[in-house]
């Protein structure tokens, strides 16, 4: 796989009526992407298939968000999250992602199904500000466990102030 591209300030937008669909195996390796995904990410289908999903990870994203995401999925729960993604050409695009685990008949995880929709711009503003403070905390703490803890603490404090759970908070933005 080619090295991760340098981010630019160029923004790509999802159309109102479209959604990105992708599937991964239990380890996060992409097994399917729809045409919207291929078009907006800038990668070809060949390039996407077999690659880890995190080739799209933007450096502005706090790691705590992905930890929360994986923890939730491993508990076999759905997760909703605002995510800033990195396209192949370095541009970015914001999505509101809904990821659900795919289970076999015995209840074992056989993969994940992700639908990503165009987020409301106001919600993106709120989330971007929150992510910035979380990211700062992570960087200040030197990116270890301490950073993760500090970052999650910021998220939890925000939720506490609103008196909501995480789900209710993101779905209400």
């Amino acid at each position, binding site marked *: 796989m080619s090295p991760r591209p340098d981010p630019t300030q160029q923004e790509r937008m999802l159309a*109102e*009526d*479209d*959604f990105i*669909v992708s*599937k991964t195996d239990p380890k996060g390796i992409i*097994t*399917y992407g*729809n*045409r919207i995904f291929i078009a907006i990410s800038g990668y070809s*289908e*060949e390039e996407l*298939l077999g690659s880890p999903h995190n080739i799209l990870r933007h450096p502005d994203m706090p790691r705590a968000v992905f930890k929360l995401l994986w923890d939730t999925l491993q508990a076999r729960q*759905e997760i909703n999250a605002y995510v800033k993604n990195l396209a192949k050409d370095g541009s970015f695009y914001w999505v509101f992602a*809904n990821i*659900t685990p*795919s289970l076999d008949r015995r209840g074992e995880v056989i*993969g994940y*199904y992700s*639908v990503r*929709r*165009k987020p409301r711009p106001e919600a993106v503003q709120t989330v971007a500000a929150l992510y910035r403070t979380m990211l700062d905390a992570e960087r200040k703490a030197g990116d270890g466990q301490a950073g993760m803890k500090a970052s999650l603490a910021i998220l939890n404090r925000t939720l506490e102030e609103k008196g909501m759970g995480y*789900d*209710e908070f993101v*779905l*209400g933005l």
Partner: protein
Amino acid sequence: MTNLSLGSRIHYLIAAILGLFLAFAYFAVAPKGLDLRLGLLLGLILALFALTLWTSYRILHAIDRLASNLQLAAQGNLDQRITRIKKGAATERLSWALNDLLDQQEAYFREVFSAFDHASRGQTYRLAMDQGLHGAFKDAMTRINVSVESLGQVQQMALKEKLVARVTDLNSGNLIQNLRSIQDYLLSMTKELGTVGDLSRETAGEADASRITIEGIVADLNRVAEMVASTNAQIEHIHEKSTEITQIVQVITEVADRTNLLALNAAIEAAHAGEVGKGFAVVAEEVRTLSENTKDAAATIAATIESFGQATSRMLADSQEVKEITETSRATVTAFSGSVRRFAESARTSFQQVSRAQDVSFASLVKVDHFLFKQNGYRVVNQGMDSPEARAVQADHRGCRLGQWYYQGQGAELFARVPSYARLEAPHAQVHSHIHQAVTLLGQRWQSDPEVQAKVVAQFEQAERASEEVVAIIDRMVDERHHTRV
């Protein structure tokens, strides 16, 4: 032919065309021999055949893949997708269209599942997201969200009802226990009040008897005082008379002294007369002796009278004292008689109050019995038809504790003569009838039938109304018994 697959049919068709072509080529070539141009043409045609065969094979393979994917989708497996789709391939659009369809379907079902899953846990904020869905999927999602919202509300209501039902059940369970403890308490209180009532009745009787006794004592004392007063008067009279006697005795003494002096003078004169006076001297001596005797007797009388006077003086003093003591006793006993009268009155009042309290506590006891019966009826809703509560409410209005009290027990004994007694029977029988009907309805499938539920509630409501009347009549019975007596 009809049993063959499309691929086989195309292959057979191509093979048939090729066979015909080869036969045609043979008949074309055989008479003249093969010339170069004809050979090239035949070669070209053969090559085209080969290409057609290859292309048809590729298309057929792709269609096969699509068909098996569609087959899986038809079986409800929306997971698989066609990947590595060649740009410009004949089936490119078909493949993506199938993928898009599956994406729409899978996103739709996952959204619906998530939304209902959350709603069923009362989390109404998680609506199904219709953004990115198209046409019928989007329309269906909009309608489904209405259901999700109402399901969420129903779920919350159901949760609330569950809590209410559990709390109510807990409450009524405890209420029954509480009522039972009140029942025990009232029972022992009624017993104790019975004892207190007996005691206060005895006290009131004894106080009345004491009052009568004391009034007798007061009358006796009055008589004693009167007698002392009359004795006193008589003693004073005697005292006066004795003074008179003393004066008379003095007169007698003086007469005796003078007589003595006269007798002495007579004796002297007799001596002067000598022998002649001798007889006179004897008379004079006798007179002197008589006067001496008289004087002595008078002195004895005086002494007697004097001691008599002393005795009457003492008697007078004594009887004065007796009079005073009697007066004091009479005042004390009169005051005591007043307190005994008041005591007797209050004993009578407290006997009446205790008797009323006893009736009130008896009435409360049968009311509690009645409430317990009703509570058991309510408990059947949660406890079911096999519960002890269901068996407890089988009693009719004669067999229940209130009924036993009313028809055979203290209710009949104490209250049969008050006007409200007769009015209790009808509403009491109604309470039983309505509770019985409610419980019978609870034996049906009321959980899923709102009509039966409404009937159950109506029966309980009617039972409550009749029960209010029962309670009011019991209160009136107690009032009537005591207003007529007090």
